[in-house]
């Protein structure tokens, strides 16, 4: 058992000293070390009254010195040195020490091996350190595990005001989102000026809630992240100014995150991404196939030539006199629908998409049926539209994976919440590692900006306080 060395065991220690060191400590010195040295502690491993090993530490605030460690000769190479070392390190950590320092004779291979196995690194060589002229290594071990750095992230690119605190290991401390969707639903879509105004109204409350819920101070944060683009310029501005305010007032590095990278990296809440990676990004503003070689290399290999898929959903919903946003509405109606109406499959070369032809076909079909006096079956129409639209996504994604073999496929963006799309993805991509974002993370949130910011932080990609927001920023940037 290892405990503090007792006076009664001093004789044994003196004996071990003599057989272990060229400059052994004598009994008087050891006694003083126990009784008078307020910063020093000797720990001894004693079994059945036999001192097997001991170690001496001097504690000096955040630093400590390992001044001695020795194992009785006949007990060497049996793991007692390692046991003592482990104990000493845990004692030092318990005292709040950040570093442990020691000197060792360059010729003492056994001891050096023990120290290296325990995480010590040689800092420098001291020439002629010992009385016999031998050199010594100065060795150091950092005792505190570096704490995962925390990021405060702000998202305001469209109609959600959001703030979250997350760390590098993706531990979530808080995530607060307010949606303006009810307001915009009244207008049948997002009105940019209205969105900007609501962001300003909400921003301080949202940031405050995220900070409060995380039980941290801004000074515990390592970086401030925000959506730099793409998005509505007025909306982006509010989040940018809020983030820069914190970065400036608290002197923190600033990270400008690409919104779609957020949608992609939120998938890491499930599992780490594997590269090369294919991302199918589907939202109200984007329909893109992105080939990702590593966390810094993004290549758009397919994109929409006209409407984004989410936009097509909204427009089709409007044609059917259904509420904004159209995605959830059509998804729900289509569940009740049957094959009935015929809509043309978009014909686009290569990996690109097109949805405006399909949207117009829906409009024509509705007009034709109405003028013929046939009531529209909304369920069947939603079904017809959704099947054509989603199958074109699946088809192009398959083609993309043939051209660009990948280890993993991820779905990203607001439309990733569509139940039929998730079904089709699961059915069609069984031979590749497929990640579908959890439903709660499909719509815009700040956690996704935080997840992406973790990569920016690791790659030291920061922006300055005068960075301009970029409403139509490419993911390749």
């Amino acid at each position, binding site marked *: 058992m290892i405990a503090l060395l007792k006076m009664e065991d001093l004789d044994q220690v003196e004996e071990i000293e003599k057989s272990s060191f060229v400059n052994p400590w004598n009994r008087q010195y050891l006694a003083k070390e126990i009784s008078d040295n307020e910063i020093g502690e000797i720990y001894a491993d004693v079994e059945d009254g036999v001192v097997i090993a001991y170690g001496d530490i001097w504690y000096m605030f955040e630093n400590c010195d390992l001044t001695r460690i020795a194992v009785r000769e006949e007990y060497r190479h049996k793991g007692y040195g390692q046991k003592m070392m482990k104990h000493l390190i845990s004692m030092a950590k318990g005292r709040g020490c950040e570093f442990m320092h020691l000197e060792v004779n360059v010729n003492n291979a056994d001891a050096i091996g023990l120290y290296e196995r325990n995480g010590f690194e040689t800092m420098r060589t001291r020439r002629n350190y010992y009385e016999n002229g031998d050199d010594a290594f100065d060795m150091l071990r950092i005792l505190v595990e570096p704490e995962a750095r925390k990021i405060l992230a702000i998202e305001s690119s469209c109609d959600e005001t959001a703030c979250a605190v997350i760390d590098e290991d993706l531990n979530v401390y808080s995530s607060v989102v307010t949606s303006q969707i009810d307001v915009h639903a*009244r*207008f*049948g*879509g997002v*009105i940019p*000026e*209205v969105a*900007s*105004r609501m962001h*300003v*109204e909400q*921003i*301080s*409350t949202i*940031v*405050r809630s995220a*900070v409060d819920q995380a039980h941290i101070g*801004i000074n515990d944060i390592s970086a401030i992240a925000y959506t730099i683009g793409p998005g509505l310029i*007025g909306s982006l*501005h*509010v989040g*940018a*100014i*809020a983030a*820069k*305010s*914190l970065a*400036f*007032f*608290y*002197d923190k590095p600033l990270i400008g995150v690409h919104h779609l990278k957020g949608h992609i990296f939120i998938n890491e809440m499930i599992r780490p991404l594997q590269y090369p990676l294919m991302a199918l990004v589907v939202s109200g503003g984007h329909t893109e196939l992105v080939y990702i070689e590593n966390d810094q290399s993004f290549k758009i290999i397919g994109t929409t030539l006209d409407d984004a898929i989410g936009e097509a959903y909204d427009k089709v919903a409007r044609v059917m006199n259904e509420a904004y946003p159209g995605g959830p509405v059509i998804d729900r109606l289509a569940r009740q629908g049957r094959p009935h109406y015929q809509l043309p499959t978009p014909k686009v070369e290569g990996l690109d998409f097109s949805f405006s032809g399909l949207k117009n076909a829906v409009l024509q079909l509705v007009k034709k049926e109405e003028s013929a006096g046939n009531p529209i079956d909304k369920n069947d129409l939603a079904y017809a539209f959704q099947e054509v639209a989603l199958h074109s996504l699946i088809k192009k994604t398959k083609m993309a994976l043939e051209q660009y073999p990948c280890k993993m496929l991820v779905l990203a963006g607001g439309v990733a919440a569509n139940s039929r799309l998730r079904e089709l993805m699961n059915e069609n991509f069984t031979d590749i590692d497929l990640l579908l974002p959890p439903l709660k993370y499909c719509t815009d949130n700040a956690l996704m900006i935080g997840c992406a910011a973790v990569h920016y932080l690791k790659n030291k990609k920061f922006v300055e*306080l*005068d*960075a*301009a*927001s970029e409403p139509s920023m490419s993911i390749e940037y």
Partner: protein
Amino acid sequence: MLTLCIDTAYKYLTCVLIKDGRIISSYSEECFKKQSEEVFMALKKVFAKASVSPESIDSICISEGPGSYTGVRIAMTIAKVIGEILPCDVYTISTLRLYAAGRENCMVVMDARANRVYCGIYDRDRIIMDDTAVAINELDCKDYTVIGDGALLGKENYYGDLSEAFLKTRNMWKKADNISYLTPKYLKESESYSR
């Protein structure tokens, strides 16, 4: 008592540090539509010049509008976020009243586009006509000193020293009771943006 004052509402970017009733550092430059990129650069300069840390401020005063919508949102966002997180007191003053700077009988006008102006009439700390958006041809400025976009009324454009203006209007600053409820003074309702 250290107060940071910011005006980003219109053509100028003005940042001032007022300590115990005295300007200790200021920045005021024409910066139309570039405020969102420039404002923190200006703040950096102002704090560096005064050799104080941003965290050491006791309060913020901002011009709340009217003005360019994007512009008024900049200072408002800074004040709301910092006021809430630091935390510190937040004061606001109408942009037009700030421009009036406590002068006698003055009419402040600011281009609101489409032949309209934002206009307020002030006499020292009295409000003669509260801020409003009006058609240019409805304005009669003959009894007043015109401040702001005077050229729209056949006078000269004149904005004065906006750093001094913050200092001179100190007794007119309004303290925000609840920072989360603060909103810019747009003088045009959200509802008017419906399609």
